[in-house]
């Protein structure tokens, strides 16, 4: 079935002209109109724009001007500016914002003739781990409709899992690609900081934000990375490195691979059912020839406190641009300029975003800078040094991507601290700037008898994405967790029922 095909298979079908990009795109648009009203994975769709791109891709294919992703429909997280598309970042603040230019990531996909299928739902300004902070409503986890897909890239995760796109983009500041990938049973990669340009990607915490692919397999992620990665002078932190082919190492055998298991990732706080799945996955790696090494990342527990100083501090600065003057929400009624700022921001931002701006403002305010911001930056170095030490003993690090499987909608929404703990295993790699990925490793049974996906996290050394993709791909050659798809037959077809009413 086309919707379950890999990017490579789709590319081959398009190039052999067994299907056209318009047909392929239309089949996804039809599924979207059937399922999206209840899953809510997309915030914005624009069939005319999407089909025009598909048509252009078909013309390119006919002319023989083909790349592996030409004509393939990709969902874009609504954090990326795409010219002429409404780009909301999940916020009321930007509910009517039409992007005047393309993010680098978007122009990279455009350049190879990929098709933009639509803009996916997300936690507001990427602040959240459940997609529940979105102004445009929560997203259903396709594996269990009363549960969250994770966040902040929850819409992208649900769209890939429900086969409402061939693959999607995400961004990851503290786990926003890997945790939803884990909760929705996908393969997702957060590259080394600086590998994918942040130009046109709406900023949350600039020293941590990094874009990456969310897809059905490691091979698909490698093909996406070939498009997304690369130097861009418009991002001052973009790294000027030679273009890399991320598929080049996929087929290397894993014999002799040293896998480090950090004891802190298997301690208190990890659901036993998740731990069991991870242990089984590690056994599989042993069979593939990997050697297991015990390592320690002693400062793991501090990564959450450090993150909740640094990320809000950077956010409070980045989000000061939303003042109701040039774009974004402006209050309908105000007395003077100060009142206009205060009201526009109070109305335009949701509760979690406001909390983080206030925390960030507090830790940067006079008298507290040394105790919070500077201290957090010092511990950030300790956390990064833990990894430097660990990588002297191993090639990759493995552990869970998230401490639990998908939780029920509403369960943690009123308890920010409990929500923050979702990212306990992912945040430290953002602080260190290292690449990390989540790979489907099996299912754990929930209390109410649902089989929910579990993600194995693979952390690599700087610029080791090709090796990580190899490590994931070899596992996917001997397991079939990544090809399993959720059953959507129980999902209410809101589109149809609305039609009847």
């Amino acid at each position, binding site marked *: 079935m086309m919707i379950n095909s890999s990017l490579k298979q789709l590319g081959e079908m398009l190039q052999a002209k067994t299907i056209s990009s318009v047909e392929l795109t239309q089949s996804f648009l039809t599924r979207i109109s059937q399922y999206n009203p209840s899953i809510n994975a997309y915030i914005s769709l624009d069939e005319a724009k999407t089909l025009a791109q598909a048509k252009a891709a078909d013309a390119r294919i006919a002319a023989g001007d083909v790349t592996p992703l030409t004509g393939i429909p990709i969902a874009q997280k609504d954090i990326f500016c795409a010219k002429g598309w409404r780009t909301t970042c999940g916020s009321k603040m930007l509910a009517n*914002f*039409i992007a*005047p230019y393309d993010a680098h990531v978007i122009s990279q996909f455009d350049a190879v003739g990929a098709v933009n299928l639509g803009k996916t739902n997300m936690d507001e300004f990427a602040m959240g781990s459940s997609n529940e902070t979105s102004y445009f409503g929560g997203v259903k986890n396709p594996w269990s409709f009363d549960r969250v897909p994770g966040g902040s890239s929850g819409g992208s995760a649900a769209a890939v899992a429900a086969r409402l796109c061939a693959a999607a983009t995400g961004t990851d500041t503290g786990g926003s690609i890997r945790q939803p990938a884990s909760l929705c049973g996908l393969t997702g990669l957060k590259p080394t*900081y*600086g590998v994918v340009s942040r130009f046109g990607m709406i900023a949350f915490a600039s*020293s941590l934000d990094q874009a990456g692919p969310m897809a059905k397999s490691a091979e698909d992620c490698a093909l996406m990375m070939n498009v997304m990665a690369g130097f861009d*002078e418009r991002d001052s*932190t973009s*790294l000027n490195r030679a273009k890399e082919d991320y598929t080049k190492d996929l087929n290397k055998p894993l014999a002799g691979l040293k896998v480090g298991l950090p004891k802190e990732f298997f301690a208190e706080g990890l659901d036993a059912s998740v731990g069991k799945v991870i242990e089984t996955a590690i056994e599989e790696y042993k069979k593939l020839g990997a050697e297991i090494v015990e390592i320690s990342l002693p400062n793991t527990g*501090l990564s959450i*406190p*450090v993150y*909740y*100083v640094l990320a809000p501090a950077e956010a*409070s600065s980045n989000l000061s641009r939303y003042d109701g*003057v*040039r*774009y*974004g*929400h*402006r209050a*309908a*009624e*105000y*007395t*003077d*300029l*100060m009142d*206009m*700022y*205060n*009201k526009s*921001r*109070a109305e335009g*931002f949701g509760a979690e975003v*406001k*909390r983080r*701006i*206030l*925390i960030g*403002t*507090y*830790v940067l*305010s006079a008298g507290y800078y040394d105790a919070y911001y500077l*201290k*957090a*930056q*010092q*511990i950030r*170095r*300790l956390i*990064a040094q833990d990894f430097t030490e660990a990588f002297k003993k191993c090639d990759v690090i493995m552990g869970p991507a998230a401490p639990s499987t998908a939780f029920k909608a509403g369960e943690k929404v009123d*308890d*920010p*601290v409990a929500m*923050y703990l979702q990212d306990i295993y992912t945040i430290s790699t953002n*602080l*260190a*700037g*290292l690449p990390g990925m989540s790979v489907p490793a099996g299912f754990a049974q929930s209390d109410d008898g649902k089989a929910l996906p579990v993600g194995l996290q693979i952390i690599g050394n700087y610029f080791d994405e090709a090796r990580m993709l190899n490590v994931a791909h070899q596992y996917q050659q001997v397991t079939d967790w990544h090809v399993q798809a959720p059953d959507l037959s129980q999902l209410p077809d809101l589109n149809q029922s609305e039609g009847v009413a």
Partner: protein
Amino acid sequence: MALSIEDIKKVAHLARIEVSEGDAAATLFKLTGILGLIEQMQAVDTTGIVPMSHSQDLSQRLRDDVVTKTNLRDEFQKNAPALGNGSTEQAVAGGLYLVPKVIE
């Protein structure tokens, strides 16, 4: 250190976010929880550790001093918000943005 309602009001003012009297108490409760989490840092001895602001030790890249940006003002102004206070007109005039009067 314990956060007070006064702290919330001060920070909200610095952040230019209106927080109503009613919301201030709830905000105080949630922020106190987050600060409690952050306080764990204070137990760590960080004497002599160089702060890390960025994951790659890079210096700022320089470029040639030439114009690289095109003028997108008209494009940008299409996103201007409505003026407000009863007017649904866009808050732009003559290529500028309109804000409440700040000089008497």
